[in-house]
Each structure stands twice: as C-alpha cells, then as structure tokens.
C-alpha cells in the first residue's frame, strides 16, 4: 500500500525521436486536487495518458492507486475516472441512453439521472450526442468521467468550450467531489481555474516539472514585492515594497486621509506562470 495516489519517478517518453516527457517526478496524495499547467506541447496529455494506462512509457517508475498503469485491469479501471482532452463517438445515442448505459460498466456507479443533472444536461437528455453543442458535449464527457464514482479522477482540459457560467458550475461540481474525498488531477490553461480548484499546482515545460507548489506560493509568489499605485500631484506613482501596509499608512498620513487612485496588488498566478515558462510579465505595465 503506497501512501500517495500517484507516484512518478524519472518518467520519460519520446515519439519517433521527439522527446515529450524527460525525467518527470510527481507525487499526488490521496484526496488532493492537483493541477498541471504548461504551454501547448509541454507534455501534459502525454503524462496524464501514461497515468491512465493509454500510453506506454519509455522509462521511469509509475504507480497509480498502487498499480502500474501499463498493466491495467478492470478492477483498477473501475476506480479511475477519465475525461480525455478529446473524445468522441457514440454520435447517434442520446445523453440519457449513454449515461445510463455507461453506468452499467461500474460496480458502484452514481445515479445516472443525478449525474446528468450535475453537469447541467437535464434539458438535453433526449438529444443525440451528434446534436449537442461543443460545450454540451464536453459536459457529457465530464458526466461519463465521474459516473463510476471514481477514487481518482483525471481531467484533461475539462472546461475547454465551457461558457463562464458552466465553468463556475463545473468548479462547484469538482469542489464537491473533492470534498467527498476524490483525488483529482486536472490539466488546464485557465490560471483562475487552477487557483480556484487546486491545492497544489505543477508547472510543466519541456517535459519536466519546473515549479510545484500551492497556487499562492508558486514560484515564490508569496515573497514577491507588492506593488502600490496611487495618484499624487496629478501623476501616477508606483512603488514596489515588502511592506505595503506601512507604505499605505504613510501615504494616508501624508495625503491627509483617502489616498487618490490607490491600488495595492501582487503578482497574479498568471504573472508567475509566464515568468516560470520564460515569457515576460505583461500585466504590471498594463494598468494606467
């Protein structure tokens, strides 16, 4: 019995000579929500699909729920939920038919009607998969992924194509699954999504993890200087400081109460992320 839900050491994978994952280490604890961030082609899908048992690795040790995913069996599969980055098929069947049918694959399936409601497809029950919109299809993918009441749920860019409201609903759904003890590994390009959902974030670039921490500490974000902006003498002033509270108090004294145009900010997760993957920060210059 391992203590972590997922344990990866020295994972490597190349496609026809092109390296996709080069020496990746990762631990995900039971009950944790872990987000994998990284630019297009960083190796997220490759990594996740190796963990799901879909792709073969070239080297490294991998254990997922105590088993090697390269030799999956039905019992192991029943404990895992998968939402692939792209999936399709079963076009002629309705939402209702598909969800009820897939429920029959799992010994401890959730109630199919509850799952349909949970992903917000109640009104589309009788619609064939072929006629769902892009975002609705994605919701169906999520429904089929959580249907088996998995111990461990993989979500590869689950909210691509969701409207903002659907994304909030999805976050609420994932949060309730996590509260129920489900271990969740998701990849996303939405930094707010990672910040909202994940207990820990890993940034992957060039096939290895380049940073790994909680969203508010990632890349030394918590030690970053705060940025204080205000207007004085008709000019925009900016100062970086480790003690923003003291600065604001001092400003309040000097300017006699309310500080005009006061903004106190810290680097967003996006700033830190862009710095980590080697892109220049942009947001600090934008505010006027």
């Amino acid at each position, binding site marked *: 019995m391992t203590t972590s839900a997922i344990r990866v050491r020295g994972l490597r994978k190349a496609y026809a000579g092109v390296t996709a994952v080069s020496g990746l280490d990762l631990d995900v604890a039971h009950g944790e929500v872990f987000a994998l961030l990284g630019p297009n082609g960083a190796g997220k899908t490759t990594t996740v699909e190796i963990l799901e048992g*879909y792709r073969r690795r070239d080297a490294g040790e991998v254990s997922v729920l105590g088993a090697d995913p390269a030799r999956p069996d039905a019992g192991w599969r029943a404990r895992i939920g998968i939402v692939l980055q792209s999936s*399709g098929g079963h076009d002629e069947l309705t939402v209702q038919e598909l969800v009820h*049918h897939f429920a*029959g694959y799992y*010994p401890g399936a959730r*109630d199919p009607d509850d799952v349909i409601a949970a992903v917000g497809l109640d009104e589309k029950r009788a619609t*064939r998969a072929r006629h769902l919109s892009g975002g609705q299809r994605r919701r169906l993918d999520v429904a089929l992924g959580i249907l088996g009441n998995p111990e461990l749920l993989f979500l590869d860019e689950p909210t691509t194509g969701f409207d903002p409201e659907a994304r909030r609903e999805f976050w609420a759904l994932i949060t309730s699954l996590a509260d129920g003890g489900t271990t969740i590994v998701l990849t996303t390009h939405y930094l707010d999504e990672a910040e909202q959902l994940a207990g820990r974030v890993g940034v992957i670039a060039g096939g290895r993890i380049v940073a790994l921490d909680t969203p508010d500490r990632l890349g030394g974000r918590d030690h970053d200087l705060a940025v204080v902006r205000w207007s004085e003498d008709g000019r925009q002033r900016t100062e970086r400081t480790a003690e923003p509270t003291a600065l604001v108090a001092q400003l309040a004294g000097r300017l006699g109460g309310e500080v005009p145009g006061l903004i106190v900010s810290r680097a967003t997760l996006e700033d830190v992320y862009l710095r980590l993957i080697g892109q220049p920060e942009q947001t600090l210059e934008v505010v006027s």
Partner: protein
Amino acid sequence: MSTAVSPARIAMSRASLETRSYFRERDSVIFSFLFPVIMLGIFAVVFGGEDVGPSSGAPVDFAQYFLPGMVASGIMLVSFQTLAISLAIEREDGTLKRLRGTPMPPVSYFLGKVGMILVVGLSQIALLLAVAAVAFGVELPTEPSKWLTFAWCYVLGTAGGAVLGIAYSSVPRSAKSASAVVVGPLLVLQFISGVFFVFNDLPSWLQNVASVFPLKWLAQGMRSVFLPDRLETLEVSASWQHGPTALILSLWLIAGLVICVRTFRWQRRDDG
C-alpha cells in the same frame, strides 16, 4: 445502486445500443438494405427468361439461382464490411479509446457487435427473401431440414464474417482509407466466389483460390438451402459438401477470433 457487473448483461445492453445506433443512421440503413434487393432485381431483369439447370430435370430461372448468392454476399457485407469500416471509424473518432478507459469487459463489446450484426443481417435477409418471393415469384423452401441448414450457415457465416471484419479493421491506416481498403477486396471475392456467376463457369484455378475463402462455401451452403436438390449435380464436386462447408467456416471463425484477440487495438497506431 451497487450492482454486480456481469459481462453477459453488458453484452446484451451493448447489442441493443449498437442496434439502435445502426438503425438511426438512415442513409446507411437504406442503402445496405436496398443493395441486395436491387442486385437481385437487376439479375432477374437482365437474365430474365434464361434458365440454369442440370442436364436432366427442370431448370430454375436466374432470379432463383442468384438468390442464394445474394443472401451469402449480403451476410458478408453486413458482417465483414460493416464491422471493418465502422470499427476503423470508432478507432479514429475515439469511441474505442473512451470505452477502453472504463471497466467494460472487451468480450462484451465484441459480443455486442456480433449481436447487432445478427439482428441486422436477419432483417436484411428477410427483406430480400420477401421481395424475391413476392416480386420475382421465387419459391422458398418449406422443409425444416433446409431451414436448419440455413440456420447453421447463417450463424457460422455471420459470426465468422464479424470477427474477421473486426480483425481486418486494423488494416486501414485511417477511417478515410477504410472503405477503399475494405470494399475492393470484398468485391473481388464476390466475383470469384460464385455470387455473380455460376461458380462452375470459373476457371478451375480461380475456383481453387476462392475455395480458400469463406464466401464460396457460404454461397454453396445457401444454394443447398434455396435451390432444389436436383441442382446439386451442378456443383463442382456434384455435392452440396455440407461437411467441408461447416469445417471451413468454423476454421475461419476460429482464426478470426485468434487474430482479434492478438491484434485488436483500441487506439490509433500513432496514439500510444
């Protein structure tokens, strides 16, 4: 709702799901149901009035003579061609990949396909026989023994065609190339297996080539069902050869099963 998962029940559920899916694709249903009927119609019209018969005894007309061939090739089209093409598509569009991520037993998937094919195949044959009887006045057999022969030929032929189709679906490199890779060879096979000609009229080396493949035997088995016994003398060996037919169809079924089990892929070749 914690229930034990039984492969047999999942197979039934998949068969019903697959059958529903199949019949919802209207255009494909209409064409594959009408094709054998139209072929039979063409033969009846083009060769109308010509007869096939033994040197002694009454001949039968062409519509009747070609009916068993159409039944046999219908079975191959429904089983082999439908599955080879649809599985190539399911492999490409991610249907198979998604299923592989669930604990669904693979055997349930295959049995579900076979179940769907058995239903579709029987409905196609029923339509073909009905049209042959009503529109072309073909007399259908009434002896139970003939229908018994039909039953085992149908089951062996369909099941064999199904597993071979599943195995063959890995040959096309993509869904786009699937119909070309599947339809061509099958069409050639139909020509050399005595579906469109009197098998006897083929050169003997072609007869030998065709005898390796199941369609020739299936067509011969169906002739023994739908033609009067006095035409038995027209066969190359002057016999319906039920024994060899059962043997060769079974061998292909077993070979197909083995190939399926050993080579079946749930993902595209480049995805893994």
